[in-house]
């Protein structure tokens, strides 16, 4: 038995999933200001009559981190940078950084050493409870970041230090700086929330481990999440995508639509998995290294306001209230769905009146409804087309990929969310595709949270010419056992470190995959002197099939 809770902007949903499917579900209004109250309320409601001791896992998708950032309630962070030569980040990053001497170059070589004296001097000032330290190319050699962190502990004993190389093993100093900063800035708030949540859950007799959903659709055990709380930002859309995966994972290419009250979140799928964003998420306008699914949001949903503009039906993005059928003031997409026989709630007469307001001279209300739904679906279709274009225009760096680059070609439309049944089939028809509206589509988000599997990733870079390898996420910079190394060898070493890291975090190792790999010969003076191999491995995000629960866990 698994419990999943998704805190949304309006409602907090919970589902309990057992071997035969959904055992219970509950919905309460989200308690802004005290998220935990709503979480506990929905949990108690969902678990009423069930045995809490039988739960094997509790997974939580929460807006605590997102809200802290959006509401500007982050803590001040002392930011230390080792930027070396290059772009001046002043004005491009949050906070007022302290610039330190010391540089690691693109091969991970030290070209200037950091100075303890500088750090000691900086420690004379106050406000060093929360620190972030980021060095350029620290993912190629974290030694400077580690040294600076050591000196900070020695001279200032901060409560917490986030290292840039720990938040991401990928290149992009600017994003790692922003990630490290915000990770430290939400660390305390998340820690308090996590402690309170854990305490409340235990007091209810639940012994199962608590997991937190991440933006990349994976979960991590609560203790691990406390070190990297920024990973828990923007998890709502990820929960819903995972819900699609649990309810109707498409086999090939597809497009999924989460059609809610005012927006539709669109994801593209390949080989049964949603595509990831090529770049990290933005937090407070700052680009970060936080990985997430690639989603586009378009302002069309059941409550979208509908009117005529210059004779043409216009839909959204504004919401003026609920459907007229439900007592709202203006016509909505949901009213059109009721008139078209695609939804059944509220006062059908009022829905018809809503269509009447929009009718062209002599137009029947059913025809108006058809026109409204077609206009709403058209907006979604345009957004899907734009996503496909954007993917096709994504730069690639190999001739092979230019010649044989593949354009996404969805074969099916999967709809979840409150208004999916009304709109997704029309979108599908416009695209000439089949549509799938799975059972449980309205609580897909909570199901996604309940079933999401833990994930973890690491990046290994081996430089055989210099004889070392790094795993940035682990702060590891070690000698290579031998100079001859193949990509397969590198993947084996990476897999071993990933398994170790997973074991330490209490995560079962299932479904390892290499998400990126490259291999270059290093040639000096007309002969090959080594290889540079980089590979990124991850425990694949996904859902545990409720029926095979025991197998995966």
């Amino acid at each position, binding site marked *: 038995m698994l419990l999943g809770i998704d805190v949304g902007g309006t409602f907090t949903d919970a589902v309990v999933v057992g071997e035969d499917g959904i055992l219970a579900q509950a919905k309460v209004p989200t308690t802004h200001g005290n998220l935990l109250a709503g979480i506990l309320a929905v949990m108690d409601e969902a678990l009423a009559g069930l045995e809490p001791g039988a739960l094997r896992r509790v997974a939580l998708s929460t807006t605590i981190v997102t809200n802290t950032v959006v509401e500007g309630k982050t803590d001040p962070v002392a930011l230390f940078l080792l930027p070396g*030569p*290059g*772009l001046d980040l002043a004005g491009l990053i949050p906070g007022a950084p302290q610039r330190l001497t010391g540089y690691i*170059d*693109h091969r991970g070589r030290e070209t200037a050493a950091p100075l303890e004296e500088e750090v000691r001097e900086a420690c004379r000032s106050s406000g060093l409870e929360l620190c972030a330290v980021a060095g350029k190319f620290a993912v190629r050699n974290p030694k400077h970041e580690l040294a600076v962190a050591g000196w900070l502990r020695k001279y200032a004993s901060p409560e917490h230090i986030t290292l840039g190389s720990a938040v991401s093993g990928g290149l*992009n100093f*600017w994003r790692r700086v922003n990630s490290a900063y915000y990770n430290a800035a939400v660390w305390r708030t998340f820690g308090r929330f996590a402690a309170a949540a854990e305490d409340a859950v235990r007091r209810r007799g639940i012994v199962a481990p608590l997991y937190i959903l991440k933006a990349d659709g994976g979960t991590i055990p609560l203790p691990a999440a406390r070190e990297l709380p920024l990973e828990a930002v923007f998890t709502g859309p990820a929960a819903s995508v995972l819900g699609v995966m649990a309810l109707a994972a498409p086999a090939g290419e597809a497009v999924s639509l989460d059609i809610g009250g005012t927006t539709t979140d669109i994801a593209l799928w390949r080989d049964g998995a949603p595509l990831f964003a090529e770049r990290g998420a933005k937090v407070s306008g700052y680009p970060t290294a936080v990985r997430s699914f690639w989603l586009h949001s378009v302002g069309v949903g059941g409550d979208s306001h509908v009117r005529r503009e210059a004779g043409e039906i216009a839909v959204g993005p504004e919401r003026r209230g609920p459907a007229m059928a439900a007592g709202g003031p203006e016509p909505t997409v949901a009213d059109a769905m009721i008139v078209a026989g695609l939804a059944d709630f509220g006062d059908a007469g009022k829905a018809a009146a809503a269509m009447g307001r929009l009718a062209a001279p002599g137009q029947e209300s059913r025809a108006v409804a058809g026109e409204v739904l077609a206009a709403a679906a058209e907006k979604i279709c345009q957004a899907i087309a734009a996503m496909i274009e954007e993917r096709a225009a994504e*730069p690639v760096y190999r*001739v092979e990929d230019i010649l044989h680059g593949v354009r996404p070609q969805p074969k099916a439309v999967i709809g979840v969310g409150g208004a999916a049944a009304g709109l997704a089939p029309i979108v599908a028809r416009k695209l000439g595709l089949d549509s799938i509206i799975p059972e449980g589509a309205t609580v897909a988000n909570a199901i996604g949270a309940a079933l999401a599997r833990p994930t973890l990733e690491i990046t290994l870079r081996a430089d055989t010419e210099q004889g070392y390898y790094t795993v940035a996420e682990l702060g590891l910079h070690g000698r290579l056992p031998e100079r001859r190394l193949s990509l397969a060898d590198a993947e084996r070493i990476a897999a071993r470190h990933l398994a170790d890291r997973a074991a330490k975090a209490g995560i079962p190792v299932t479904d390892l995959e290499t998400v990126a790999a490259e291999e*270059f010969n290093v040639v000096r003076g007309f002969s090959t002197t080594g290889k540079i191999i980089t590979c990124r491995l991850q425990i694949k995000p996904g859902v545990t099939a409720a029926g095979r629960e025991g197998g995966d866990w």
Partner: protein
Amino acid sequence: MKAKPFGLVFFPAFDWAISPSHPEREERLLYTRDQIVEEGLLDLPGIREYKPRLAEIRDAERVHIGVPDIASLITDAHLVSAGGAITAAEAVMKGEVERAFALVRPPGHHAMQVVHGTRGFCTVNIEAIMVEYLRRHYGIGRVAIVDTDVHHGDGTQDIFYHDPDTLFISFHQDGRTLYPGTGFPNEAGSPRAYGTTLNLPLPPGTTDEGLHYVLDEFILPVLEDFQPDLVINSAGQDNHYSDPLAGMAITAQGYARLADKLKADIAVLEGGYSIEAALPYVNTGIILAMAGLDYSRVIEPDRAGRKESMSGQAMAYVKALTQEQRSLWRDRERLGREAAARAGDFWQRRRGIYYDDSGISEEREEIVRLCPNCLGYRTIATSSEGYGTGYKTAFAAVLPRRACPACRAAAQDAVRAEKQRGNHRHYFIQDWDNDLLERI
């Protein structure tokens, strides 16, 4: 109004090499990629990255005459790098970006109009293909190309040697000390385009001081005079002090300040083979400078202690050269008339051209009609011999833009007569007005 972004076409061709240990190999832009991704340049709101399009064979044949044909001499990578230059240029022409940089490989500035193989790592001239694409599709008139590679841009010079609408300025390490051994002040264009080819052979060891003297005192004023519709920078980076193939002493700051002053509409990467010590920093500097961002912190980690000034003797040489070229530029019309008078009805030259990468040597004879009514048609008789390629020979007539009816007829006659004689294997007419490369 918000300033337009800067466009970057980055294409490192990570799966393409001339041969495994050749300077043009997969690794060349690896460290540059590392640096620009690590700096976060591709995420800056003021920088927009573009995926290169694939150029078509006809884009290449608008400029080149391949023997036996271009398609059999190139790889797909060449169509991507030429396409990358076109993508950058179109982004500028459509007004999507203020200026753009095609940071692509393989390079092109040693590729001449007639192509028998690969020379100086180049097979097709990606800037020339781009320029003629813009003339065909966007009606661009006057273009200035400033070649800042350490090697003389002899291919670009060759293609535009007879074109008064294309100003080609190249500074480079003196050809007496470096490949391809050309690029002297007396190579100034054929009589009808005299002075629109300008060469500045600089002494080995030239520093930022010498380079910026030439830029400030000669190149920028000449551009001001010429009033081009577009300024193109053939942005080779092998003048860097660490380059293994040459002996100059330019720094990343020197290159970035050059990009800042030149304000080229479009830059296209050419050479640069100090792949670890120079390219990551030079490219970061050029990108920041072209994007209008602060580049003052882009300093190579190993630069400390290098001397920046030049010896008095070398600086005196640079100043004298600048003086000499200034008078050539000032007197270009008179000098062009005198050259035409000396030549009579036809101007001609004979050259041996050597393709180091393909192991081919070519003999080429070029004859330009000095027509009173147009720029004059020209004929090219070419033959080559090389390892694996055997003996190849061709005869071509080239009709320049706005060719007069008499020249059109004469060009046709010349090729047909030559074919009758049967001294060559392949016969072509390249017609620039009608955008046609015709096989006869």
